């Protein structure tokens, strides 16, 4: 159209915010290459030792645990979220759709501390689950749910579900109902309609949701911190230990970069995959 | 120069390119004061782009646009004094009817009292008195259309631009709005440019029609002339329904023009003064369905062709009959009423008469 009025008005604030973020990330990159002086916040000259330190078995096992927990969380989240998203989009009554949405989405906005604390109350040895099971006579001694990977995953899945449900519901809302009707009209039963039409059409949402949750869980902090209680360590906990407990900023910076790289890598890998899937869904 | 002679809008060699696509090519057109001119063409012919260039939303890649004697080619849309009615009406959903109509006057810093009077008059003109405080969401499609019209005419535009304003209405309402638009035009005398792809609408409404295709003008003419003597094959087949006969050779025999088609079919027409076809030249004949009739045994018509009936399409006031005329291909006939259905059952062999005196004859 016409020359661009007010371009700078709109451009400069955005640019300022972007520069701030780039500067903050630049700081991390910069610290990653500096020598750590124990007992001092001042850092020394250039070094690559911080990166070499990553190869130690203890850090590798934390990285392995982080990947494992993230993978399990994203898969379980997908399995539990799909039916809820489906119900939320397809429920016949307006009231039911709104109710499901409120129940499914509200946990996202209570904040991670509230949600993590709630799971401590549920999973603790005097907690909800153990008390209920004990009074029902199903167990004698309380189950050790807290401070285990299982407990961490149970809590992480519940945290991740609202986001997954939003992503899946968006995908489902865009499925043309007439495609499903056409399939049914051509003789496909409900299960076949789902398998051959609905699922393929929502596959891009499924993939992007799973990868987003994977990357998201990679950066979870308070859940492994409080529910893992030091027994389950993820990269985030290591960054905290190194950065805010030992004040080893350079190594914390290296770990932050690692987490950033894994998160970006997993999301980056999704791009071609999603478009291929969309293509596949369009052809089949 | 007399004031009346000054055209309302003058387009001179106007072009518009969108990347590699030439939407409008070196188009020149003069729009007279007070006329209702229609831009007609299939989608993608450049008619909407042309309208947007007059309004100032699209900047021409070349050429100049003069409105009321002033070159506005480089003038932004909000200083052009054109009144536009959009296809979607584009009524402001956060304002009521009054505020919508008053918007242009407020932008012109008119005094409050003046605005109230002008809006009242405009609403009266579109028969929406008493709707001033309604929200636009509560209006029907036809009412929204009127508000959009009132909003455009209240500012006293130098030219009123209508971008397919009736396309969202259902058929009956559309017909009624066409009549109202025409009446409104008679009353206000506003120079109006109307864009449509509906040829019936164009024929009914316009003083003059500009037929466009691929960014170029095919013909500019009054509706009657356009229907009777289209300038080329595109206009002939775009305006109304028409049968295109296979290429013919023409020779002159006394006061008759004789056409020979596919080697052996011979059709005759009275010679016309306007006909400028030379002996032996290849010509194209276009015949309207209403000029084909089922021949009765006693009729002595000269252009009798035998054919087989393939379909009837009953339309109420008339019936369209499709026939297979062998070397002449498939033809359509239009006859009043529905008698043809019984008189010439599907599959039967009949004779038809082709009246070439009203046919469009173009050199090949």
């Amino acid at each position: 159209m016409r020359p661009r009025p007010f371009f700078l008005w709109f451009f400069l604030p955005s640019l300022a915010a972007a520069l701030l973020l780039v500067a903050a990330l630049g700081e991390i990159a910069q610290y990653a290459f500096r020598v750590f002086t124990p007992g001092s916040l001042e850092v020394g000259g250039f070094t690559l030792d911080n990166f070499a330190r990553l190869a130690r078995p203890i850090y590798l096992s934390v990285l392995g645990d982080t990947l494992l927990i993230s993978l399990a969380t994203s898969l379980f989240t997908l399995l539990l979220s799909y039916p809820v998203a489906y119900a939320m989009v397809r429920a016949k009554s307006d009231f039911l759709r709104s109710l499901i949405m409120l129940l499914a989405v509200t946990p996202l906005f209570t904040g991670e501390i509230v949600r993590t604390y709630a799971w401590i109350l549920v999973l603790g040895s005097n907690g909800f689950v153990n008390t209920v099971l004990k009074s029902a006579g199903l167990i004698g001694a309380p189950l050790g749910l807290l401070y285990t990977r299982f407990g961490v995953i149970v809590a992480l899945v519940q945290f991740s579900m609202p986001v997954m449900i939003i992503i899946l519901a968006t995908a489902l809302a865009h499925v043309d109902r007439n495609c499903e009707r056409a399939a049914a009209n051509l003789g496909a039963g409900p299960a076949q309609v789902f398998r051959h039409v609905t699922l393929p059409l929502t596959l891009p949402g499924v993939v992007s949701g799973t990868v987003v949750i994977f990357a998201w869980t990679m950066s979870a902090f308070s859940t492994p911190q409080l529910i893992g209680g030091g027994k389950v360590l993820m990269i985030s906990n290591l960054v905290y230990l190194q950065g805010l407990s030992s004040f080893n900023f350079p190594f914390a910076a290296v770990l932050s970069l690692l987490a950033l790289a894994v998160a970006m890598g997993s999301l980056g890998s999704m791009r071609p995959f999603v478009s291929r899937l969309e293509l596949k869904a369009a052809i089949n | 120069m007399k004031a009346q002679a000054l055209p309302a809008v003058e387009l001179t060699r106007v072009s518009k390119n969108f990347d590699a696509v030439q939407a409008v090519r070196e188009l020149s057109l003069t729009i007279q004061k007070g006329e209702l001119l229609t831009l007609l063409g299939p989608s993608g012919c450049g008619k909407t782009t042309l309208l947007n260039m007059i309004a100032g939303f699209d900047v021409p890649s070349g050429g100049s646009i003069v409105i009321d004697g002033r070159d506005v080619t480089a003038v932004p849309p909000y200083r052009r004094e054109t009144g536009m009615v959009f296809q979607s009406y584009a009524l402001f959903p956060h304002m009521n009817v009054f505020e919508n109509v008053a918007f242009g006057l407020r932008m012109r810093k008119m005094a409050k009292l003046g605005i109230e009077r002008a809006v009242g008059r405009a609403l009266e003109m579109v028969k929406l008195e008493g709707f001033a405080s309604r929200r636009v969401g509560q209006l029907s499609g036809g009412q929204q259309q009127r508000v959009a019209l009132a909003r455009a005419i209240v500012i006293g535009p130098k030219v009123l631009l209508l971008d397919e304003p009736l396309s969202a209405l259902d058929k009956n309402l559309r017909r009624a709005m066409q009549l109202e638009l025409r009446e409104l035009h008679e009353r206000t005398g506003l120079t109006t440019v109307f864009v449509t792809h509906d040829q019936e609408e164009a024929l009914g409404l316009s003083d003059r029609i500009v037929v466009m295709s691929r960014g170029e003008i095919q013909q500019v003419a009054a509706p009657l002339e356009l229907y009777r003597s289209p300038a080329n094959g595109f206009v002939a087949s775009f305006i109304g329904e028409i049968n295109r006969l296979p290429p013919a050779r023409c020779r002159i025999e006394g006061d008759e023009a004789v056409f020979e088609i596919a080697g052996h079919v011979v059709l005759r027409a009275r010679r016309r003064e306007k006909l400028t076809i030379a002996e032996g030249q290849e010509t194209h004949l276009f015949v309207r369905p209403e000029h084909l009739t089922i021949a009765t045994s006693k009729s002595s018509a000269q252009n009798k062709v035998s054919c087989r009936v393939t379909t009837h399409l009953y339309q109420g006031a008339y019936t369209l009959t499709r026939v297979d005329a062998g070397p002449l291909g498939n033809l359509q006939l239009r006859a009043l009423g529905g008698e043809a259905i019984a008189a010439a059952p599907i599959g039967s062999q009949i004779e038809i008469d082709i009246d070439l005196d009203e046919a469009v004859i173009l050199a090949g």
Partner: protein
Amino acid sequence: MSARLARGLRASLFWGAVALILVYMTIPAFVVLMTSVSPSELLEFPPSGFSFRWYERAFSYPDFQNAFVNGLIVTAFASSLSLLIGSAFAYLVDRYVFAGRAALEAVLASPLIIPHFTTGFGFLLLGADLGLGQSYAVVIATHVVLTLPFVSRTVYVSLRNLDPALERAATNLGASPFEVLKRVTLPLLRPGMVGGWLLAAILSLTEFTASLYVTAQRTQTLPVAMYTYVREYTDPTIAAISALLIIFTTALMLLANRYLGLRRILAIDAH
């Protein structure tokens, strides 16, 4: 008849599963609400009585009082700045073509994928090197960057749903670009902007991981104070605060759904 039976069975199985999953999602909130009114110091189910003592303790605990005020200050500034910058950015992306647009988009959307502890750690280092320490300015800047993608996405969706003919109509009627913005574009974007601001405010109010890095005792926000408390004490004071936060967000969601349409804020139905 048997086909109908199978259909009924399948439907009840499906809805049963959905109900169970929803129970799993909501049970922590109920346990928190129950615990918050329990009179006992130890966690117990079902509660042996009813008491507001943990609420009293939460309200009278000075760290929480300070953290609550800090949080409100940070949220007020961060969400408003985020709204201004995010709306400007959404408009920029929707309307202007300029060199480096893709890069700018990538940077400003990246807080969605960058781990919060990375962002927080980066801003901690940046604040230290700029001599700002863990001041409000650093906390607010961090929260603005973290909430920006949510605001700009919400406003961007509203912009996309805006009929471009409306702005053209205003222009045609004589409104200058500034007036079009003021009288047509902004009023029509208002629901999207309110939604985006609300989203930013809630996210800022409840943000924890990055805040843990960029706040000091003096500037710590409520979630950070809660975390510190949980690590030191085991009594249900946190349950009381959590219950209040749960009730508050639920009420907010109900209101947002009623007046703005949650689906629109979350961009689930993008027509």
